């Protein structure tokens, strides 16, 4: 497949996804539910230095980060990291079920005969939870190893030197690219698990097989939204310390923007890959 063909396929799939969302807005419901869970979590975490939440959070934050981060405005510096850990929990519970629900809704929307049914899709996703969580955990663990482990090794063996900073940056950016490639290879496992009810290993194998055939298109479909997220994460790294110095509460706005961004990037990734999966299946027939 040439790059031009891959771009054309990606454009068509995105266009199809947007039209589908306009025709069946219920497809966006799972992503909204995840975003609401994230938003509620953020709302609670915003109050972590105050009672009653400080009863739970004070001790671990004091031990791992320091007393300073329990007080205004330094608490906003630790808020993104705290939110990140809770986001992982939400993703592993609600989020992954919502992914499955979204895949089924998109499948039903594609069939044209049946109106997408949220309740039924939710039930189907719950029944496939173990497979879905296995797929998500595989992606998560691989991302974690690629992004975090080199940094730990570099700091341990090289220490705090200028070369360490340069190497950390190189590993950081190349790590992100590698993570996007891996997601492009394995992302079709979600539709395989829901639509074709494949088990964990079969889903991964199926995804790998399909992705090889349309690798560049898959890469574009995954990379474009995820690079937006990467850009946001980098910008957030600068914006939050700036806001903490001047208007600390705006840090929450920055994190909230991230929740909205992820709502749309997840929609584009899941909707696009599911549509491409369905197209590929029909082509095979």
């Amino acid at each position, binding site marked *: 497949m040439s790059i031009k063909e891959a771009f054309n396929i990606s454009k068509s799939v995105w266009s199809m996804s947007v039209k589908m969302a306009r025709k069946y807005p219920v497809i966006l419901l799972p992503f909204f539910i995840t975003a609401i869970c994230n938003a509620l979590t953020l709302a609670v975490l915003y109050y972590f230095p105050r*009672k009653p*939440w400080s009863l739970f959070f004070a001790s671990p934050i004091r031990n791992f980060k320091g007393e300073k981060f329990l007080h*205004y405005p330094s608490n906003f510096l630790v808020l993104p990291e705290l939110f990140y850990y809770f986001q992982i929990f939400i993703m592993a519970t609600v989020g992954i079920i919502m992914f499955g629900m979204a895949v089924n809704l998109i499948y039903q929307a594609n069939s044209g005969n049946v109106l997408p049914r949220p309740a039924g899709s939710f039930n189907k996703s719950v029944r496939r939870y173990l497979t879905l969580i296995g797929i998500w955990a595989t992606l998560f663990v691989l991302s974690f190893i690629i992004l975090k482990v080199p940094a730990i090794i570099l700091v341990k063996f090289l220490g705090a030197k200028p070369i360490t900073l340069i190497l950390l940056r190189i590993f950081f950016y190349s790590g992100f690219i590698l993570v996007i490639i891996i997601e492009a290879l394995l992302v079709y496992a979600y539709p395989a698990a829901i639509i074709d009810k494949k088990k964990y290993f079969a889903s991964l194998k199926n995804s790998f097989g399909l992705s090889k055939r349309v690798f560049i298109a898959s890469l574009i479909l995954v990379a474009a939204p995820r690079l937006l997220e990467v850009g946001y994460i980098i910008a957030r790294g600068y914006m939050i310390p700036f806001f903490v110095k001047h208007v600390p509460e705006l840090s929450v706005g920055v994190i909230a923007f991230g929740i909205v961004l992820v709502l749309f990037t997840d929609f584009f990734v899941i909707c696009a890959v599911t549509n491409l999966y369905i197209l590929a299946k029909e082509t095979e027939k």
Partner: protein
Amino acid sequence: MKKIINNLSLVAVAVSLLCVTVGMIGCGGGDYEAEKLYWKANKMYVQLLKDPQNTKPQDYENIVVAYQKIVFKFPRWAFAPRAQLTIGQLYAMQNDTVKAKTEYEKVLKHFPNDQNSCAGALFAIGKIYEFENKWDKALENYNKIVSDYPNTYAAFQVPLYIAQYYKTKGLEQKAQNAYKDAISRYSKVIEEHPNTFAALTAQNFTVAALIEQQKWDEVLENLRKIADSYPGTPVAAESLNTMAGIYVNQLNESEKGAEILRELLEKFPQIGARELIEEKIETLKSGHN
């Protein structure tokens, strides 16, 4: 029917969780709110300090109100005394000594348990009396710091401050007596509380008093005591460094200064400024030669 009940139960659980969460979010406040207000007030204060001459009286008043809000709403908060002190400082900066004194006295009245803030308030009131050329009243306040709040840092500063005052006024005899009293007080602390932070503070102030009197032999003796009493600590390194500086700059004994610097490098091989110190030793050696 069962399905409807299940769905309703799920919705009920979700709504309850939401209500509990939102309800709990409404709780709290207290110290965190105080910190927030304090940070905002401090930000305005820092902005004012950049250009106090060109700050309008209304801006001063706004900042005073911001700190007053903290003291009024959170009187039991740990930093409320400091907020009250800052109110006094704001009036003092506007040369409104009457209001400044009133606000400083509030620290003594409302926060008697905060020793540091009370000592700070007494010192500030003393400075106002000095400004009004009422040295006797100022001295009374300064002595009150030493008698009523002996464990505060201000109580260590005051004896030396009094001696410095007499010195700047050209009252040599009074200055010498004040230095003698200061050193005597510091020696008492060192004797009564050996190997404590108070003893170390007293030793440092003793050195400062002797430096002001240019009694270099005694300065060196005391610095050596500090270096020997706290081996391996940054305090010891600083003492040795100061000793070297005195030998070189005050007593013109470059070789002795170089010897002390070599001792410093020997006892503190991981010291950050190693290269600079080695360079200094070379300079001193070549200068001596």
